[in-house]
């Protein structure tokens, strides 16, 4: 019985191995919203997440530093415009996070 318990303990993902960058609620919200679209601009993300300009900027910077999101600068007419996109690394990290969390909750 104790052997079985040890096996289960080995299979359970320890919470500290979960990607904390994604696990933060605001960033999880951002990652989820960006995962379901091809790309979105800053204003669209503000409206979707309900975050303020400063908050969203700060979280975006962290996600960009980690290589999870890509910032694409373009022009609409003469106005500069920024589109945000999840990178392949970001998509993989998000999928991995989902998998880990599902497994974690299934095993509780």
């Amino acid at each position, binding site marked *: 019985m104790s052997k079985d318990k040890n096996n289960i303990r080995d299979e359970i993902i320890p919470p500290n191995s979960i990607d904390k960058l994604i696990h933060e*609620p605001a960033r*999880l919200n951002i990652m*989820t*919203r960006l*995962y*379901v*679209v*091809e*790309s*979105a*601009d*800053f*204003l*669209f*993300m*503000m*409206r*979707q997440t309900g975050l303020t*300009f400063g908050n969203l900027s700060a979280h975006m910077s962290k996600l960009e530093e980690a290589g999870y999101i890509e910032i694409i600068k373009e022009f609409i007419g003469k*106005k*500069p*415009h*920024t*589109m945000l996109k999840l990178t392949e690394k970001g998509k993989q990290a998000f999928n991995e*996070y*989902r998998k880990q*969390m*599902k497994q974690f*909750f299934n095993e509780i």
Partner: protein
Amino acid sequence: MIEKIDLKKVEKQTYQFTFTDGLYDMAYGSLIFFIAIAPILREILYPSYIIFLVLPAPLILILGKRFITVPRIGIAKFSQKRTKSRNKIGLLIAILFPITVVLVVLTYLGIYNIRVGGYIVPIGSGLFVLILLSVIAYVMDYPHFYLYAVSIGLGIPLASLLKPIIGDPMHYIISFGISGTLILIYGIFTLTKFIKKYPIPKEEISSV
């Protein structure tokens, strides 16, 4: 937390968020409204009354999205699957729109009744528009289009049925005017709510 995230649902919510401006309701409502008053416009403006049937709906959509929606909620590009569906619908609407206007004008002029007789053609035309708009509603994943489909799908045969009973131009005003005005008012109400809820952000945000 994560096990509750349904990505399909999130995608659908995000996609449908782009319709919360009420512009589609206003565009379609104005189309039906102008169809309803087409006989009156025809008397006054012939032949330029056609402009009122063809122009307002696309103008509301194009200008509304450009000057009202995008500055308030920004832009999102959806998956290729969605984009392809939208392109197909765009093509379908581009074909359907002039056909609908022609069918409505022909129904008004009573050409079906003179050449073919009976109500088979108006009912067939109504069904044609009803089915096509329902297909658009399904592919576009926008349930309001089902309402549009019913309003015009029933309106065409109803106009033909009412013409001998209540005469010109009341048959058109009843068949299309009521639904058109209600959809238009709903669209204006939704747009007003949208503008209040999403004011244009400060320059620093809109220029990011």
